[in-house]
């Protein structure tokens, strides 16, 4: 009897699988579909939501201004919870929705899946924040953010100029972002500088007293990590560390000011980034104003700014192509559009004015060429 029921259930399941696969609705609704996959829920949701919000904001602005040649844009955001195994399903959803062009993924690990999937279908992606060095491995992938390796290299080159004898490093060894920056950082660092290396992992991310006691004697600490553990570190190290020590981070520090009151510590905090959430001038300030009016400040970070730029860069590139006489309508296939965009982005296309930099261009490798700025979040007391 039970077996029969089991059989019945199995049969139902099979039917269920089929019911789940409604025919693809295609992209023929007269809209350009921009797809993305990011952590909209889960621990990394703050990044995914920032990208979704900012991209949606850019799309709304473009549509309000009449769209591209009269055609509107539509953003399709899917949730991968920072889990690479969920990307394929999301990618399938994007295809079903008739995606034309994509923002790739928000984070690096899922991005490794996405780059391969999109390569098969020749779908163009310009990722706002998947910073892994390998993300733009194939011709169809481009980055708006600095690649991890480049960040490590730039940071090392900057520190080489400071004439320090000894620096401390605090990084997260199970995080590709942190680990990637760190590896390139040490490779490019002058050999005369002694490095005190400390690290932590997800499973030990609450108590840093052991690392702090190691780093106590260093007056300059390079921290290629995200802002949440950085804030915990700084709070825990408040008294142990030299009062005028310098914490130097990468773009992961962005969001630090929202996480903790920096005036409670005496040390200097600065970062190397393409975006400063406290900007008061230029396109960045404009973006911050618009974003905070529409959404909350909690998700205001460089991820969003970068996504905002991505959408505009794609829009600008497509308008340029139309101006050049190419025919681009929502009837175009993703693959054809990809070929056009690849030629455009590798052919010296310049994104004039964005929230994360100006005159942004791309190398043929897909990596971005723009200026990284050192922002001082807080001066030493």
């Amino acid at each position, binding site marked *: *009897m039970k077996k029969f029921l089991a059989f019945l259930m199995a049969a139902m*399941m099979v039917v269920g699988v089929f019911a*789940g696969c409604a025919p693809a609705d295609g992209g023929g609704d007269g809209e350009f579909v921009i797809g993305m996959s990011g952590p*909209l829920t889960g621990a990394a949701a703050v990044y995914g939501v920032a990208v979704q919000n900012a991209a949606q904001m850019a799309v709304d602005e473009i549509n309000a201004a009449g769209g591209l040649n009269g055609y509107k844009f539509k953003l399709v955001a899917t949730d991968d919870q920072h889990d690479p195994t969920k990307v394929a399903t999301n990618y399938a959803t994007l295809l079903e929705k008739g995606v034309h062009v994509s923002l790739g993924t928000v984070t*690096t690990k899922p991005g490794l899946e996405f780059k391969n999937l999109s390569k098969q279908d020749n779908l163009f992606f310009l990722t706002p924040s998947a910073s892994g060095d390998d993300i733009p491995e194939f011709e169809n992938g481009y980055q708006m953010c600095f690649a991890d390796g480049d960040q490590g290299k730039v940071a090392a080159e900057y520190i080489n100029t400071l004439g320090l004898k000894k620096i401390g490093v605090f990084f997260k060894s*199970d995080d590709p972002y942190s*680990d990637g920056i760190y590896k390139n950082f040490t490779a490019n660092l002058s050999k005369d500088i002694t490095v005190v290396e400390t690290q932590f992992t997800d499973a030990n991310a609450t108590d840093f007293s052991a690392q702090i006691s190691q780093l106590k004697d260093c007056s300059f600490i390079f921290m290629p990590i995200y802002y949440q553990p950085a804030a915990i570190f700084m709070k825990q190290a408040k008294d142990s560390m030299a009062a005028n020590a310098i914490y130097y981070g990468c773009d992961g520090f962005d969001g630090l000011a929202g996480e903790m009151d920096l005036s409670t510590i005496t040390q200097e905090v600065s970062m190397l980034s393409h975006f400063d959430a406290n900007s008061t001038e230029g396109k960045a300030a404009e973006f911050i104003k618009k974003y905070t009016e529409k959404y909350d400040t909690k998700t205001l970070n460089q991820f969003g700014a970068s996504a905002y730029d991505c959408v505009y860069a794609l829009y600008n590139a497509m308008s340029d192509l139309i101006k050049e006489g190419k025919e681009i309508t929502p009837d175009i296939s993703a693959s054809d559009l990809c070929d056009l965009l690849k030629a455009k982005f590798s052919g010296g296309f310049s994104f004039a004015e964005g929230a994360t930099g100006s005159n942004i261009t791309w190398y043929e490798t897909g990596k971005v060429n723009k200026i990284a700025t050192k922002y001082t979040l807080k001066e030493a007391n």
Partner: protein
Amino acid sequence: MMKNAKWKQYVTYLVLICCTVVFTVLGSMKQLPFSTLLQLESATIAMILAASLCLVVGFLGELSLGHAGFMCVGAFIGGKLSVILTDSGAYGGNELLIMLVCLVVGGIAAAICGVIIGLPALRLRGDYLAIVTLAFGEIVRSLFRNAPAEMFGGTLAMSTPRYDRNSLFIIGFILVLITVVIIQNFIRSKHGRAVTSIRDSEIAARATGINVTKYKLMVFTLSAFFAGIAGVLFSYSQFSVDSKKFDYNYSIQILVMVVLGGMGNIGGSLIAATAVVVLDTFLQKQLTGNLAVLKDMLYALVLIGLIVYRNAPALAGFREKVSIKNLMRNLSKHNPAKIHDDEAKWDRVPTKIHIDEVLSVDVQSKSPYTPDKQWKEEE
């Protein structure tokens, strides 16, 4: 009922073969959308995992919280080997042959780990074993994460050659079939009988001359082998393998499948695995934003509810009442006449009752396992 006994034990195989054929035909006709192909792949992986864990939890009666660790070994070793073999053009670049080699090697690598973890397991039981397997899973993950980046990708995921998505699920189904046939054969052999006897009473099994050590090790190894195979299959279904995937939460997810399937019921585990995969994808699409967490809550509630319902001593009477057998009996016309007290079977009442049995707070209840019923004698 008895007449059907012979073919009944092959129902699972039949269903699996039907599924394989139907989906292969549909696949070759290009009737299966991308998302369905992905679900089929995930379902086959989950089925292998559930069936192999069912062997440990349902038949040996030990709780393993490190099943994802074995899968991890298979995924990394098998995945790496396939990269090496593909790059070196071994076997004339025959993808299928390379995959076969990787499956076997990945499975064996995991099986070796099964032996390694099985050894302490022999000295430990129950809760202690559960924590050791959990620790083992975390250790394996940490080792692969910290291995040189050139070997296993380090903190970043290790890239693997993804197999053609239009045919991987067919291989997956074939592997499920092989796994299920072998596991079922094992359980329905004298060796399987010995294993079930250990589950029911280790002391009695020892006294009956069963080599408990040997069989525990055997089950751990066999189960790890198939988990390793699932790992290799997983690495073939992805472009990259990330050690983070194989944490204890994933082990627990596999455990949920086994519990949902009714511990000690391979067919049930397969159905539960498919259901979890299908439901997972469905809910991932339906529940967005803060609601996405509802999925986890649902799993947790189902898990608790099911276990409490099936095992609570206080609910024994209720369970009897609503059991399928009873419902069927009530539905059928021939209602057996009410049994009068004087006709009740007095020989069922133990005449010697230990005083502590009556007063004890731990009144022994029925075990959580599905009792064996599939193998009624064929005559």
